[in-house]
């Protein structure tokens, strides 16, 4: 399958401090690729380099098969949507006027404004002045703005960090629909649950280094010992190993009607992150 993003041996130094160390990965067309890491791990730095806002120290990066420094061409800009905290909205203008500017810049009909506002659950809020909006609303308008021109590739830097669970879910559904239409999404987050729900593949970034890269499901399965945790009616919680011995005990408890619930002992992505990097997220 065609690669939309390719990164090879990318390094970034801020004076003497190394923010990215030998980062290599590729993102396939149509996948949602998650960049996971704690604060300061280099997620935003990577997005800035990939969108030609920041010069890499060494290594090569390409998007749509062209080196990122050539992305300033109009035809590439039209294929890319970006949501980062350094691309703000005009505070004194209404939501509508903010989006209208971008319709004109990207050559999109104004009717798109209503479509994207409903995508982010803000239909009807078009007349509000941006300075009067809450942080979560701002984040959703910024997302809506990036959706306007139906980009083939979206860069989303922690897109749901300010959102409540209901709106987060709404955005997830929207992103999944975009994915179904073939949009490639490069997403950073420190929310493991988000990565689990959305991402086809994730890279764990720690201190500027990729420490693990695979599909979330595979990562979990590789680390599962297939044991089960069982809660019993007498209040005990027991762990049953895989194999015949565990199966027999499960059968006995079930037969005696003593089981309240059964959990798989697969680690979560968060558990795996801690195991691999030796540090907690956030």
């Amino acid at each position, binding site marked *: 399958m065609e690669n939309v993003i390719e990164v090879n041996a990318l390094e970034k130094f801020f004076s003497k401090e190394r923010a990215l160390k030998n980062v290599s990965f590729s993102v396939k067309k149509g996948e949602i690729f998650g960049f996971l890491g704690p604060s300061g791990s280099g997620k935003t730095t990577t997005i800035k380099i990939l969108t030609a806002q920041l010069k890499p120290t060494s290594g090569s990066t390409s998007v749509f098969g062209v080196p990122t420094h050539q992305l300033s061409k*109009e035809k590439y800009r039209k294929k890319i949507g970006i949501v980062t905290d350094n691309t*703000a909205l005009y505070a004194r*203008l209404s939501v509508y006027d903010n989006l209208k500017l971008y319709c004109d810049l990207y050559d999109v009909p104004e009717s798109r404004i209503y479509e994207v506002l409903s995508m982010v659950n803000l239909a009807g809020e078009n007349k509000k002045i941006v300075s009067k909006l809450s942080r979560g609303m701002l984040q959703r308008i910024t997302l809506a703005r990036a959706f306007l021109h139906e980009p083939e590739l979206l860069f989303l830097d922690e897109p749901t960090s300010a959102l409540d669970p209901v709106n987060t879910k709404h955005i997830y559904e929207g992103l999944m629909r975009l994915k179904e239409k073939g949009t490639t999404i490069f997403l950073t987050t420190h929310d493991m649950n988000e990565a689990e729900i959305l991402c086809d593949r994730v890279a764990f970034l720690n201190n500027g280094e990729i420490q693990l890269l695979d599909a979330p499901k595979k990562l979990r399965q590789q680390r599962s010992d297939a044991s089960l945790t069982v809660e019993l009616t007498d209040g005990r919680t027991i762990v049953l190993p895989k194999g015949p011995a565990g199966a027999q005990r499960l059968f006995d408890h079930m037969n005696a009607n003593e089981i309240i619930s059964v959990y798989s002992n697969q680690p979560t992505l968060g558990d795996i992150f801690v195991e691999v990097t030796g540090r907690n997220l956030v």
Partner: protein
Amino acid sequence: MTFSMKRVTAILQKDYKDISRNLYVTTTLVLPLIMAVIFGRDGKSTLELIYMIINMGLVLVGTYVQASLIAEEKEKNTLRGLMLSPASTLEIFLGKNLLSFIATAVIVTGSILLMNYNPGHVPAVVIALVLSAIFYLGLGTLIGLMTKSVVEASVIIVPVMFVFSFISFMKPFMEKYPILTFIEYLPNMQMLDLAAQAQAGTGFGDVGSNLLIIVGWVVFIHILAVYVYKKRMVEE
């Protein structure tokens, strides 16, 4: 790359809506007009005084308003969005200059009328004023790009204002200190020289060198502004 007037006017429209809700800028616009009323009402003002007021208008609107617009876009992180859009550097620059240019034209014309200033050779003076306005806009863009905030831009503007509004009164010192002769080549001094010749009734041919020097400043300041923009927008 195709040039799109639609993108240029989109930026202009956005700026217009934005500025009309920006009290800070709208009050700056009336200042040169007030000065024109105070200093030039009787119509007997010297050319130096008239051009002090005109340059004040050019600096306050052309340079200061433009610098504030650019500095605010940078400070509030909205310029980045323009840069990442399909708009080319030329489209962004044109779009971001148009409103300040229109405002400068209106304010300077207004103050000229208020002062009852009657330039001898109207076409020459108008061309020189338009070119000067474009220079002052470029200077504003440059200041906006080099400062971190609107507040910082307002501080920087004070010496700029001094240089371009009051330096003509330094002329007597030039004979005493030859080192100061470079002042003569500043665009505002060229403008004043041109205006004096126009008043004396000379034609286009005589002011050609003045116009050429101002054009030189226009080209220089805009090349510098584009260079700084490109440098600032891609972090190291």
